[in-house]
């Protein structure tokens, strides 16, 4: 069966002169079939692992974050309205609301990003490289749910073209592409990604109160749900008293751990029933993904462990200093708030932008953990520090490697001197 199909596909394969079409065809064909290339001289046997398989395993590790992130968009929305406050109450409404927000983000992120990848692959005449599979899966998870799609598209254009293609494509970039997209939004359109008003979806501030109004999609879905006799979105309404939309981090800035716990319990933060970027909130699922990556050997456990140590040590030092209420937050609670774990598991471990030597990875991870927590706690302008810390460490990674390699060279030179 396969043979007939392959013969047919090979027959319709566009000629190599038509660069665009050929690249596109090749991209889809090699997705469906691993090609029939054989080894030349050199090794005659190759490991079953390739870049596609590497990348897809990161995407697999993200799946639970996707599931929970989508649901949590809906859950936060209704929680703010004071409706269906139980986790599984109004399950279908929360899920559909989440999907209505999530699907467009995912589609835009991947269509724009892959489109640029395809274009550059065709232009440069090389096969489509897999780097964007992971980037395209990460970007939706690190954005706020209500981000306007055109801003998302802009950020991806910026990140992929200036951050990656300008440097030569997959494997050549200096900064993590997903974070570059986020940092673009952060500095170009700060109101869409910071403050207290953006983390709960579908809720707009009108004067001093927050309220929500459903769009056509929801009305159309309501017809469907009511025909099943299920609960419906209805008209929307005003948000319950006391709602601020603040994340634990912004509460911590204003009033330390006390302010955080006045709004959220520790278990809420652990299970991720808090507002935040879409995929960052649920800690057990992120840890599951991280363990999956460590066990399969896809991501570096050195980076993850050293970053956790870096964050913990800095947290203890800040506890010792204790100049502000924020500094007094017990160091271990920093793992519960914000996106530390997500950044550690999926962002810092990007092999292209992290340090590439094993010793370098320890230093890189440790410093990322340290710098990130310092930004989080000490700098009031930025509520969260990992994005900036990792981008900063991406910049330093080649320098770290340089010194690790330099030490190796010096070791070798010294050995020669001793021998001589």
């Amino acid at each position, binding site marked *: 069966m*396969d043979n007939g199909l*392959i013969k047919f596909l090979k027959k319709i394969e566009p000629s190599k002169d038509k660069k665009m079409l050929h690249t596109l065809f090749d991209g889809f064909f*090699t997705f*469906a*079939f*691993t*090609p*029939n*290339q*054989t*080894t*030349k*001289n*050199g*090794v*005659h*046997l*190759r*490991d*079953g*692992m*390739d*870049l*596609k*398989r*590497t990348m*897809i*395993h990161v995407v697999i590790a993200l799946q639970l974050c996707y599931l929970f992130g989508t649901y949590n968009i809906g859950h936060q929305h209704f929680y703010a309205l004071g409706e269906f406050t139980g986790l599984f109450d109004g399950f279908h409404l929360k899920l559909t609301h989440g999907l209505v927000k999530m699907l467009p983000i995912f589609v835009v992120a991947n269509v724009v990003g892959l489109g640029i990848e395809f274009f550059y692959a065709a232009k440069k005449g090389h*096969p489509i*490289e*897999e*780097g964007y599979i992971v980037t395209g899966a990460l970007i939706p998870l690190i954005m706020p749910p209500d981000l306007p799609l055109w801003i998302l598209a802009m950020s991806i254009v910026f990140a992929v073209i200036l951050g990656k293609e300008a440097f*030569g*494509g*997959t*494997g*050549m970039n200096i900064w993590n592409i997903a974070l570059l997209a986020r940092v673009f939004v952060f500095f170009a359109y700060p109101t869409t990604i910071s403050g207290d008003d953006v983390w709960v979806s579908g809720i707009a501030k009108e004067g001093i109160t927050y309220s929500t109004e459903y769009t056509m999609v929801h009305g159309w879905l309501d017809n469907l749900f009511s025909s099943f006799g299920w609960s419906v979105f209805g008209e929307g309404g005003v948000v319950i008293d006391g709602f601020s939309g603040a994340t634990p981090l912004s509460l911590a800035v204003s009033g330390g751990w006390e302010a955080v716990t006045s709004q959220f319990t520790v278990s809420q933060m652990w299970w991720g029933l808090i507002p935040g970027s879409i995929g960052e909130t649920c800690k057990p699922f992120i840890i599951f993904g991280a363990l999956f990556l460590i*066990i*399969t*050997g*896809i991501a*570096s456990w050195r980076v993850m462990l050293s970053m956790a140590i870096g964050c913990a040590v800095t947290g203890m030092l800040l506890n010792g200093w204790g100049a502000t209420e924020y500094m007094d937050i017990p160091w271990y609670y920093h793992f519960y708030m914000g996106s530390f774990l997500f950044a550690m598991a999926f962002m810092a471990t990007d*092999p*292209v932008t*992290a340090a*590439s*030597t*094993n010793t370098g*990875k320890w230093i890189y991870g440790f410093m990322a953990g340290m710098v990130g927590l310092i930004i989080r706690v000490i700098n009031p302008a930025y509520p969260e520090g990992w994005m900036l810390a990792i981008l900063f460490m991406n910049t330093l990674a080649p320098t770290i*490697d340089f010194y*690790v*390699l330099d030490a*190796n*060279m010096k070791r*070798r*030179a010294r*050995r*020669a001197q001793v*021998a*001589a």
Partner: protein
Amino acid sequence: MISGLMIFSSVVYGQGAENASSFYTNLLIGTLGFVVIAVLLQLTDNLLLIEAKKTGADKTGRNFSIFPTIGEIFKKRLPARLDGEQVVRLDKGHDILVEGESLETVDSKVKANTFALQPPNYNGIKPIPKLVVQVGDSVKAGDELFYDKQNPDLKFVAPVSGEVIALNRKEKRAIKEVVILADKKQEFRTLPSIDLEESSREDLIAFMMEYGAFGMIRQRPYNVVVDHTVIPSNIFISTFDSAPLAPNLNFVIKGKEAAFAQGLKVLSKLTSGQVHLGLDGKSENSPSPAFVEAEGVEKTYFYGAHPAGNVGIQIHHTAPINANDTVWTLDVQAVATIGSMVADSKFDASRVVAIGGAVDNPTYANTYIGANIGELLKDNVSIEKPRYISGDILSGEQKQTEEFLNIFDDQISVVKEGDYYEMFGWLLPLSPRPSVSNTFPNFLFRDHKFEVDTNTHGEYRAFVVTGQYEKVLPMDIYPQHLLKSILVNDYERMEGLGLLEVVEEDLALCEFVCTSKQPIQKILREGLNTLREQ
């Protein structure tokens, strides 16, 4: 000391109790006690280590510290036979288990009739050497066939007696092979007898150059033919081959023990340093007595997976190559040949060759250097699209049936060509395949022997994944950075990062594991060539 500590602590404790903050006092005492004990232990430890270093006992690889190393707590114990030996433990590496390992019998029916000496096997000689025979000449085993034009004293000799039947050329008239049809009964050129005790190093060198022994020795860095004007700082021989389907050298050396011992004696006169033997520490059985009881050499056991048997790895861990060093390497059968040149006054190029992989009858064959591949594999291959490899599947060279085993190879591997498409092969591979990645369930079937093929399982990409080469290369080298320095022609970094310490076979496993399917051995050879030209 301890009683003093107790008195001191009771005093402090007494004060603390009055203040009723006994927790901190206890903590203080505890910490102090811990520090004192730790300092004492550390002192003892250091003294022991210094003593061990003074007596030279630390070179046996045993742990003289009073603290166990992490390895001693978690890792497998070394076999008892290694007690008191010099052992190097290599944690990195990977054994690829491939179906079709040769059974330890010599199949007397497997015979080759034509043999060839191939100038391209010798790195560093001119592509067109000066031939001293013509087609139709008859030669004896040990007769000169050609010499290098740069160095006319470096002569290459016939492995068998017979008639020269062809001089095959490649592009630009470079000589590819000098083919000899072997006589039924082998005749040997009688070499002058040489007294090992009496003769000087110069005499020995001249003898070996003249009668072809240097055609079997390679010089590092660069893995090139020997430069006889340089005295090698050491000579290295690996007595086990850890590559997939590699011949068992303990079996191969059977019957040649005396010649091997003689060969070692010759070699030990040629170096300013020592002859180093690398022995297998991992297999359950002790290696052949020829290796274990070898005299006048430095023996080191290597405990670890492939590439532990590569002589390059062994050099790195015994006496690493420094800038301006040269070392020689050769394999055990070549040592035996050199031994018989001195002991029996003849050039005995007989080789036991392993035939393995996708063949019907994986076995060993008695033959000579440079045997014809098709003849050795006659009636033994029934798969549809075979690929014949001279050497192992990681660093060997693809050959056709009418071609010949390379001079330095003692195995033929046969594998299936893998020119098939595989539906979602990257995502859901259906057939088992060797891999170091835990994304495959291979770690559940550690003893499974794979039927392998030559499919690349993916396409060529830029370097993306980091740290994967380091996992399989037990050397203090950063392969990825070394390769990048070669790609950008940075000579200083190439040398600094240890290019001189490796040759293709040492990084072959890195090429196998490479996610981006980079041609690592090719890049490395280019680097070695450019650096050599400098």
